[in-house]
């Protein structure tokens, strides 16, 4: 295919931007006091584009404003941790000069609105997080929660989400090796799609978002920008209600083919030592990635939006800054390597353009056809984001039920049959047989067991991985439930014969502005922290998804725990299938 050289759509006149009104501020998900904070910070009324930038940077999804205070209490260090939370993904040393790079992320609201594309782009996003750091993805997992099986929407959501997860991962070419599927009426109006990816890199070949050097060209790479998902990040953090259906056109469409090309191109330019800094355009797209690159490197950034490759004519600065079009990357190239890098982009048929440069002003300046659309202090955009210590009430302990007080409604035999027929316990083959679990030829323990095991390169080392949580335990007692989720993930890894090393978490909760919900979040985080400290099992990456509510009813508290461990000889890992007739069965522990 011929490379599509960047096309500049002539657009001599910019459209006038709308006036800032309280309604407009509210429609950006910003509270009046948050808007006040903006006014104080910049000393004037923001432009429309600036308001959009603030809404993207300061929403829950990007700023972690409700959870940050509590997340800080999690243990994140161990001698084998190379990179903890704060980058695109966590990195741990697995020996032999190799590192495992992994993270989990939610795509709950988009998947509820359009299950196929929502789930697919969730998988795409987490894969990008991993390969942005220089790692080739070697496995994917997914943790799915749906409503009651009899709820009218459940069937549609299950089939769409599963097809979407498979459709993206299978085409991209990563084995989907594990996960979980659960059903409960509390997810009726709000399914959960948590996607995890694990990649492999050399410990001396990890790439970061931090840009260095003034006057460095900032390069856009990947698919063209369209109007996809504008306001998507804001939507992902908004409580659902009657109007949810109308938000549909903002759904992003995934292109796993473009992502695969992006992967190969990125790994190739990284191997050729062309990259100074790199950041994927995920939620809140160009805004978050450009700000982060500059802020982390103590640099300013100036963008010239007329150079951004666009799919649609007449896109405004506001739209380009907020677009969530998928399969895009932002990077700073080493100037002397620019031509070499461009040849690689052309080879893979990807759009690219120099869309700006780094400056020494510490300002985030966005220009469109010469007109300044935004001029903001770059560090403060992230650092001065609101931080809330939201009121929280501990979950009331449940009354203790004495075993003697219960008369079993069913005989043991009938109870067993009933249990076996429950969707939560039934075989998940229908799901994981739609996922290519063996591509790359390294899957030692396939889906269906406690943890998956994937051979590292061609062995003998293997990585074990799992995703787990039991929401009803968390509902009953957040602290114990959080501990239990970590312990179960740890056991899953141990059960296949591997040594558990580190955790990624995905905290799915309701509206944090309600003290009971905040109480669940705080309790679960305390429990996770306690268990991780006790087990020397640091948290190296994670994601928080709040406002998972419909009509004021929250989902069950669902802190999904993803874990990774290492086994020195993969051929010694064990699965759950009995090996031979007459084998003895042991129970370990109390």
């Amino acid at each position, binding site marked *: *295919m*011929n490379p*599509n050289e960047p096309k500049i759509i002539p657009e001599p006149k910019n459209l006038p931007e709308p006036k800032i009104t309280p309604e407009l501020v509210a429609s950006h998900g910003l509270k009046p006091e948050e808007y006040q904070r903006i006014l104080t910070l910049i000393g004037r009324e923001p432009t429309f584009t600036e308001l959009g930038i603030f809404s993207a940077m300061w929403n829950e999804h990007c700023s972690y404003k409700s959870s940050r205070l509590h997340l800080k209490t999690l243990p994140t260090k161990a001698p084998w941790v190379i990179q903890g939370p704060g980058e695109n993904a966590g990195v741990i040393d697995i020996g032999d000069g190799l590192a495992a790079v992994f993270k989990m992320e939610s795509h709950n609201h988009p998947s509820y*609105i*359009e299950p*196929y*594309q929502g789930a697919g782009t969730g998988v795409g996003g987490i894969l990008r997080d991993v390969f942005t750091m220089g790692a080739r993805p070697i496995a994917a997992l997914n943790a799915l929660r749906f409503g009651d099986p009899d709820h009218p929407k459940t069937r549609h959501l299950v089939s769409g989400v599963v097809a979407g997860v498979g459709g993206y991962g299978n085409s991209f070419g990563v084995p989907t090796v594990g996960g979980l599927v659960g059903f409960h009426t509390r997810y009726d109006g709000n399914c959960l799609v948590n996607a995890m990816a694990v990649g492999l890199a050399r410990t001396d070949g990890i790439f970061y978002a931090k840009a260095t050097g003034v006057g460095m060209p900032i390069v856009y790479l990947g*698919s063209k920008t*369209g*109007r*996809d998902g504008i306001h998507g990040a804001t939507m992902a953090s908004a409580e659902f209600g009657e109007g949810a259906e109308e938000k*549909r*056109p903002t*759904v*992003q*469409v995934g*292109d796993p*083919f*473009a992502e695969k090309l992006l992967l190969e191109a990125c790994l190739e330019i990284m191997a050729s030592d062309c990259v100074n800094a790199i950041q994927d355009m995920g939620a809140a797209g160009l805004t978050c990635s450009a700000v982060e690159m500059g802020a982390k490197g103590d640099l300013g950034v100036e963008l010239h939006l007329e150079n951004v490759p666009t*799919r*649609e004519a007449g896109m405004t600065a506001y739209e380009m800054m907020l677009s969530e*079009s*998928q399969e895009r990357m932002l990077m700073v190239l080493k100037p002397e390597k620019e031509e070499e890098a461009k040849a690689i982009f052309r080879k893979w*048929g990807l759009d690219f353009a120099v869309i700006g440069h780094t400056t020494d002003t510490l300002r985030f300046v966005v220009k469109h056809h010469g007109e300044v659309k935004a001029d903001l202090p770059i560090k403060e955009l992230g650092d001065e984001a609101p931080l809330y210590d939201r009121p929280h009430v501990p979950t009331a302990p449940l009354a203790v039920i004495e075993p003697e007080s219960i008369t079993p409604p069913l005989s043991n035999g009938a109870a067993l049959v009933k249990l076996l027929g429950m969707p939560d316990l039934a075989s998940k083959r229908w799901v994981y047989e739609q996922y290519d679990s063996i591509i790359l030829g390294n899957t030692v323990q396939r889906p269906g067991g406690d943890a998956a095991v994937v051979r590292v390169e061609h062995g003998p080392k293997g990585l074990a991985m799992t995703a787990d949580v039991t929401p009803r335990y968390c509902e009953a007692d957040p602290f114990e439930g959080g501990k239990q989720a970590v312990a179960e993930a740890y056991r899953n890894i141990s059960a296949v014969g591997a040594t558990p090393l580190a955790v990624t978490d995905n905290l799915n909760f309701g509206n944090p502005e309600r003290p009971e919900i905040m109480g669940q979040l705080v309790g679960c985080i305390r429990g996770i922290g306690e268990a991780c400290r006790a087990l020397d099992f640091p948290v190296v990456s994670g994601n928080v998804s709040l406002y998972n509510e419909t009509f004021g009813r929250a989902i069950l508290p669902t802190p999904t725990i993803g874990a990774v461990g290492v086994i020195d000889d993969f051929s010694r890992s064990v699965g759950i299938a009995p090996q031979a007739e007459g084998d003895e069965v042991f129970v370990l522990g109390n």
Partner: protein
Amino acid sequence: MKARVTVTLKTGVLDPQGKAIEGALKSLGVDGIDSVRQGKVFDLELGGADKAAAEAAIKAACDKLLANTVVENYRIEIL
């Protein structure tokens, strides 16, 4: 009765297929085609003779299955 349903992507929705086809046409040396967007057609045969009932059935089919109305539009023609 025969009918045709045409399902096309809404404006602005990314069409990865169309994009790949555009690129392929260029490299095959087919010039002059600037943009391609791909959609689906369904050719239906219906038993009954009642046009209104047929239209209602087709509309139900589109809404429930043939089109993903989040990202697609559809058009029904009774032939």
